[in-house]
């Protein structure tokens, strides 16, 4: 078995190098926040006067190796005071550090974290953005609801299809090409209320990392990006209550130590008020969401720690009494951190996630459910071989169940017949090894290789088509039609319908020009085996996921990126410039007028196409001082092309390239926050984007008593440019220092100058005049908000 060999090889590689460490010793340990015991991810541990350093992993663990001698260890993390400790290295050391948050009050000396940004310069990792929960909370948002997905859209290279639309798009990729992870669990729909809000409760989140490219080999399964969201572990020192009351929702979270300081827990809940959006029509409509985050951990001993985390979220919509709808994600993850020795760290995860969409049509006496579920085992290891070499390796296996749709009549008199679409099953696994190697003091490389394997499992029938063509171009009418079925093949549950495997190399290198400047380059290949079926401009919660198989091939992406990184003025400022070029093969697209819901033979509605995107991103950041923020600018292009292939004919849009719906030529965001004094702080956003590509009518005619519009080439027109300014102010009232209750008021105005940004323009006929007209839909005008947050 090749996998076995592969892992054997990687293990022996590690073992072979252990014996070489003569006169060298290892310092390892954990970095936590002194205030709440939360582990710190991405903190820099550095031996002063040397080039030896390490960065903590997701669990706060670090390991570095140096020759024996006396050193001064500096531990720094942005926003925290640098910890310094003198050590004599004459044997392996275990050193844990607790960092203290740097105060930003005016009359105090602003602590400059000496080395915290330097790591960015040295590490080959590029195309990554990290936001801490605190940063996200400072960004002004609509209706005062802190939103991670909206925050990442302020970063270069990230867009979405418009206000109130679900998901996000990274470097020209589609919304289903993002791997969204909440504590490693796959989240299939990242939005609440059709995209107005995100599923992540900022009170429960520690930090967010977005990989736009250079995706590390340990991640796989999506071709465009990885959004790695980590929940807080829970305060292990004190019991703490956090909450907030806002105009759209309220939230409450509790955290604290449990089991004699051996563990901690976090429980956070959030709910919106109903009847908010949909009171326009006469009908009694309502829409609301709620979610629950849970996390707990238990330290067995210094080398073993268990984590259990869970998420449950739900959206409910009622349109009158006759139509009910709901959707939500559920996920859970049990993790076991095990430190084999001071150089080898491991984590085993058992993960479950589920997404379902339900409809109840009382008017027609039937209901509908569609679902995707997966069970996932991951085993990840990090081996900190020496100050020059660090290895990450592991494996991952996922079992999927897809229920593309099930209809059940809900009464005896229902006119609907029960229907169960073919249930689909699949298995995916990945095996990876990546090595970060410091070739010289200036040049560091990461070489990663992931081998992914996907098997579409049997247990369902498949239609056989004449000439193997499920979709055929009708030359006479000039349209695509369903192919001719010639039979049905039944696959047993023990059969495998189709297997795929891919090697996914990931390469990155960083060349440090001087202490403050580096250039980086990277190449990554990624494969994606499951696809979101969506032929609407925006992703809707109804869209269903489909596995690769006989008719749908895995998406394969190649991305090349090159970047320039520079820190200025004692690292108060940073500049990041990146250029990327990305291609995605086997991107499915939908023939004109395709009907995807309740469709058992999706293959008759789709063609295989490709996607390409390229762009240049600038990010100028100020991360220290009273004023912090960033300016992001992206110039880019994202296009799709879908030729006819074996179906014949010219393909979609005549086989020509057309703009993807999330293409934005120019995308500028300016985000800043300013701390005036201990009572007041302010935030502002300015956003400008080229209008979204849309399909406008190029003519009309009279037919069946109505004016029928004829639409031009796909996405050939554009909406007007999108822009707005948001502001916020946070007020912390005077309080006695001994008082435990801490409160703050957050006032915000979204879309300050009340611009009616078009979310869409629809074309129709006026009922009173019969004349054609274009109707602009603007989601948010000026939206003031106020919320009160408290901590106890």
């Amino acid at each position, binding site marked *: 078995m090749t996998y076995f060999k592969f892992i054997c090889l990687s293990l022996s590689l590690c073992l072979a190098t252990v014996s070489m460490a003569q006169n060298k010793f290892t310092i390892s340990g954990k970095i936590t926040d002194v205030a709440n015991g939360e582990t710190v991810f991405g903190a820099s541990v550095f031996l002063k006067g040397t080039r030896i350093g390490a960065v903590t992993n997701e669990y706060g663990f670090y390991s570095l190796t140096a020759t024996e001698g006396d050193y001064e260890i500096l531990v720094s993390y942005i926003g925290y005071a640098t910890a310094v400790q003198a050590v004599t290295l004459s044997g392996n050391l275990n050193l844990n550090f607790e960092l203290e948050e740097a105060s930003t009050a005016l009359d105090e000396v602003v602590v400059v974290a000496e080395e915290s940004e330097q790591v960015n310069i040295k590490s080959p990792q590029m195309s990554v953005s990290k936001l801490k929960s605190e940063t996200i909370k400072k960004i002004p948002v609509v209706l005062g609801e802190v939103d991670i997905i909206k925050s990442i859209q302020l970063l270069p290279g990230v867009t979405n299809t418009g206000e109130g639309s679900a998901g996000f798009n990274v470097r020209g990729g589609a919304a289903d090409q993002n791997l969204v992870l909440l504590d490693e669990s796959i989240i299939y729909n990242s939005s609440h209320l059709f995209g107005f809000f995100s599923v992540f409760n900022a009170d429960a989140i520690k930090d967010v990392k977005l990989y736009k490219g250079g995706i590390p080999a340990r991640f796989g399964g999506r071709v465009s990006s990885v959004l790695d969201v980590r929940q807080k572990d829970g305060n292990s020192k004190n019991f703490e209550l956090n909450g907030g009351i806002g105009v759209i929702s309220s939230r409450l979270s509790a955290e604290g130590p449990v089991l004699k300081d051996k563990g901690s827990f976090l429980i956070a809940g959030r709910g919106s008020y109903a009847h908010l959006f949909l009171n326009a029509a006469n009908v009694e409509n309502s829409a609301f969401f709620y979610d629950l985050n849970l996390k707990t951990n238990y330290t067995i001993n210094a080398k073993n720690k268990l984590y259990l985390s869970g998420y449950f979220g739900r959206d409910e919509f009622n349109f009158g009494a006759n139509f009910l709808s709901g959707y939500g994600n559920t996920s859970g993850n049990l993790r076991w951190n095990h430190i084999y020795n001071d150089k080898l760290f491991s984590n085993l995860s058992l993960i479950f996630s589920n997404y379902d969409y339900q409809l109840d049509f009382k008017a027609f006496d039937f209901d509908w459910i569609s679902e995707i579920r997966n069970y996932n085992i991951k085993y990840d290891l990090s081996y900190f071989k020496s100050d020059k070499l660090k290895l990450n390796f592991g494996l991952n296996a996922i079992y999927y169940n897809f229920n593309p749709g099930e209809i059940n009549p809900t009464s005896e008199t229902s006119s609907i017949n029960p229907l169960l679409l073919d249930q689909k099953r699949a298995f995916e696994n990945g095996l990876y090894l990546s090595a970060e190697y410091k070739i010289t003091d200036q040049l560091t490389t990461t070489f990663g290789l992931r081998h992914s394997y996907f098997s579409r499992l049997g247990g369902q029938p498949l239609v056989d088509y004449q000439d193997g063509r499920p979709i055929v171009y009708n030359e006479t009418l000039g349209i695509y039609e369903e192919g001719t079925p010639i039979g049905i093949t039944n696959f047993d549950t023990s059969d495998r319908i189709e297997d795929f495997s891919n090697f996914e190399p990931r390469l990155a290198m960083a060349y440090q020009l001087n202490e403050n400047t580096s250039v980086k380059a990277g190449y990554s290949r990624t494969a994606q085996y499951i696809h979101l079926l969506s*032929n609407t401009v925006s992703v809707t919660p109804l869209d269903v996921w489909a596995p690769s198989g006989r008719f749908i091939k895995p998406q394969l992406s190649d991305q090349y990126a090159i970047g320039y990184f520079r820190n200025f003025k004692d690292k108060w400022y940073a500049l990041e410039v990146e250029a990327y070029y990305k291609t995605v093969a086997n991107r499915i697209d939908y023939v004109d007028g395709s009907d995807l819901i309740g469709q058992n033979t999706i293959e008759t509605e789709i063609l295989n196409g490709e996607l390409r995107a390229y762009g240049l991103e600038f990010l100028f950041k100020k991360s220290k001082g009273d004023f912090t923020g960033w300016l992001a600018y992206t110039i880019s292009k994202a296009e799709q092309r879908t030729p006819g292939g074996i179906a014949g004919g010219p393909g979609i849009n005549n086989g020509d390239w057309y703009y993807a719906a999330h293409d934005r030529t120019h995308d500028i965001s300016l985000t800043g926050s300013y701390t005036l004094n201990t009572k007041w702080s302010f935030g502002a956003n300015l956003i400008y984007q080229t209008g979204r590509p849309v399909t406008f009518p190029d003519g009309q005619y009279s037919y069946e008593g109505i004016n029928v519009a004829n639409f031009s080439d796909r996405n050939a027109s554009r909406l007007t440019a999108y822009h707005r300014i948001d502001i916020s102010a946070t007020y912390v009232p005077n309080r006695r220092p001994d008082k435990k209750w801490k409160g703050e008021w957050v006032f915000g105005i979204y879309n300050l100058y009340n611009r009616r940004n078009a979310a869409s*323009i629809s074309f129709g006929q006026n009922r009173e*005049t019969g004349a054609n007209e274009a109707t602009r839909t603007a989601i948010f005008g000026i939206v003031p908000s106020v919320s009160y947050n408290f901590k106890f």
Partner: protein
Amino acid sequence: MTLRILKRLVILLLIVTSCTDVVDVEVPEAPPRLVVEASIDWEKGTRGNAQSIRLSTSAPFFSNLEDTSVTGASVRVTNTATNEIFVFSDEGNGLYSTITFDPVLNQTYRLDIDYQGETYSAEETMTSVVAIDALSQSRESGFDNEALGVDIAFNDPPNEENFYFFRFEEEGDLFPELLAIPDEFTDGNRLDVFFEKEEDEDEGIEEFVAGDIVNIKFYGISEQYFNYVDLLIEQFEGGGNPFGTVPASLKGNCINLTNPENYAFGYFRLTEVVCTSYVFE
């Protein structure tokens, strides 16, 4: 009722709730095409001899459609089994008519049009429809439990694929409401289709009240026509909204034999139709 139609309704409801206004937009302009509205509809219980076909041209989206009638074309329909030809004579106002048409269910017919030196052609089969079983009014049906609506019940023939097309038009309205449904999820059952209006001041829609008259046409249509008209309706109702399907150029069945690129808009359909009207009480 297809889920797709329901999805559309849900989405429309969502869109309705945000703020909308009418704006000036520049749209592309394609050269005009011939538009064929060749709807050979045979009313159940009649002889179906009198038929007419309307020809016009397409025009820029924000232009007036009144003067787009096409005259001077030659229009004929052929029964492909008997080769009997029915010539539709030019009325001079865009209409081409005959009073000698001989409709036969499940029979394929061919339409030929000569216009400006190019020949257009289409083929379709005449599709039957079942009778309306019951016509009633209620408030409970539909999305709005308060609004008055008309319910049409009919029995779908089992074990065969059927496609239906409805045209509802309240007297006094400028244009009709259209609905196309397959029996994909409802084969062999008694189907209820309702038509109600939800009040919307912006759109100028008023709920039905006693005394309102609705004209209802219920057609049996072919699968191919269903695919065409379903997309047409979807685009008419939701063209451009972000949750709607990406709009596309609509192609009917009228091909241009002389110059295939210059195909005609519209469709040559042959249906059996039940026409009725309902007066709200």
